[in-house]
């Protein structure tokens, strides 16, 4: 009950956050601009084969969704970081924590608020991918739950990383670190090419430690054309999603532990 109330309140605060509203408007404008090449691709597809056209348009949809989805990761991190930091900065946390609320309950409530916001984002993203495919005269081949569950787990990971970092760092620094971590995680992703030296020794540990969520990226399902549709087994889905959830859980537990020992005042 307490956690749910904090989550609801956090969600309500996000909906009225001016920075997030500005971000939302700019984001919509960017996505609309990105639709132009899609329409060009659709026009060009008329001269090629059907399979080529399907591949090109789904590839284009996938590219747009890669941007939308990637921004979602940073949005999840920013919301998680700012939701805790703003409470401390404004002093609103004092009134809440004066209630019989445990510190971990408060943090879990804030996290649940972030997850609520990201659920809305994921639903909108799902709708956008279908809309883009429809504009391109195609349809998404993948099953809907995959397009909902994968980004959700990825955002849970980024939210948890941000929560853990913001308990000890400034939110801007937190976002900076997360951005670098995400870029490094992309760089260290195994590519199949042979690499030698120290870099090779470093690559695997980094791949394991960093939020290497490319496996959790749903755009790999978006790029699949009907012709190349490969059935991903339940075990593969389960393994990947469990990896993500486990990563998020560990980070969230670290955040709770760290938050337990920190000062709740601005000093």
């Amino acid at each position, binding site marked *: 009950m*307490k956690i749910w*109330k904090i989550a609801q*309140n956090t969600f309500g605060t996000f909906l009225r956050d001016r920075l997030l509203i500005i971000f939302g408007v700019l984001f919509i404008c960017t996505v609309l601009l990105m639709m132009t090449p899609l329409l060009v691709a659709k026009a060009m597809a008329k001269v090629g084969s059907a399979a080529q056209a399907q591949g090109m348009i789904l590839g284009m949809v996938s590219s747009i969704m890669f941007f939308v989805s990637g921004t979602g990761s940073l949005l999840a991190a920013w919301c998680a970081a700012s939701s805790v930091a703003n409470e401390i900065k*404004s*002093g609103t946390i*004092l*009134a809440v*924590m004066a209630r019989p*609320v445990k510190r971990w309950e408060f943090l879990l409530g804030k996290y649940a608020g972030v997850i609520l916001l990201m659920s809305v984002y994921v639903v909108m993203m799902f709708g956008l991918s279908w809309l883009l495919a429809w504009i391109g005269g195609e349809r998404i081949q993948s099953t809907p739950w995959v397009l909902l569950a994968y980004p959700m787990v990825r955002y849970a990971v980024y939210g948890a990383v941000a929560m853990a970092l913001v308990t000890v760092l400034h939110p801007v620094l937190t976002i900076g670190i997360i951005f670098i971590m995400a870029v490094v995680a992309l760089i260290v992703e195994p590519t199949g090419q042979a690499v030698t030296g120290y870099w090779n020794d470093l690559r695997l540990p980094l791949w394991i430690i960093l939020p290497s969520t490319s496996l959790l990226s749903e755009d790999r399902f978006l790029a699949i054309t009907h012709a190349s549709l490969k059935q991903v087994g339940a075990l593969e889905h389960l393994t990947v999603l469990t990896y993500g959830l486990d990563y998020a859980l560990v980070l969230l537990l670290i955040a709770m532990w760290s938050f337990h020992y920190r000062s709740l005042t601005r*000093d």
Partner: protein
Amino acid sequence: MTTPAIEFKEVTKVYRRRLAGQEVPALTHVSFEVGAGEVCAFLGPNGAGKTTSINILMGFLYADYGKISVLGYEPGDVRAKQKTGFVPENFAFYKHLNAEKLLRFHLALAGGDMTKSIGLIRDLLFKVQLQGYEKLKIGKYSRGMVQRLGIAQALLSDPQLLLLDEPTSGLDPAGRKEVKELIHTMKGEGKTIFLSSHILSEVEQICDRAIIIDKGRLVRMGSLNELLGTGDHVEILANGLSPEVEAALVEWGATIERGPNSVRITVPVTRKRELVEKLWASGFDLLSMNPVRSSLEELYLKLIGTGVPV
């Protein structure tokens, strides 16, 4: 023996700025107790360590050293917080909520009975003179209104202990009077009240005890009678004074101030009866008689800055 509502034993807190390598001692071996049912003032200049102490009591900060208990529990324990109401200095609320929604949110966090929330919230808002503003967004409230809302939320779960950090800050004289009356009512209900304030005249009227700290150290504590004295002099207002009584008074070391229609005489309490009899014998009348004791403000100004430990 009953458990004190607040126990602060040898508490030490140092703020550390790790990057700058600075250490700022906020509290140094501060010890005090507040008994159940007491109204205790916590006094000191800005930066004395009052808010730090209150934050430690609420579990927002951890002390580096010392033993602290609130209603018999560790600070921050939910069992203690269940019975505690808290008004922080410069209270901050979620500005997008209105008073009614905010109080309902706090009631839910306090685990209160939501079925009775409407009546309870209406009564509380009436108590703090915010009726009619229930639906107004808190972002549009004045500072005084926010402060009163802070008091309303502190009273939400009918607490045994109230920790009030500058509860009258930002309030106009009428608002301050209302808060003073509220504290009087709560005192009558047997609640323990621990408040920090700079308005010493008000503190003197409502508190049983006072604790004075300065630069993180305890300077003085005790009941107001102990601190201010029970009055070893009395002030007598008479409608006149004969020359022979005046001569006797000068011998006793009394001070005499003549007004247009009265004479104000301050004498040691041991001479009180003698003086009254002399006045009556010489045909004058007594208009009033009051014990003289120093004010809390005088004591405060005398102590602060001297750095004299208890």
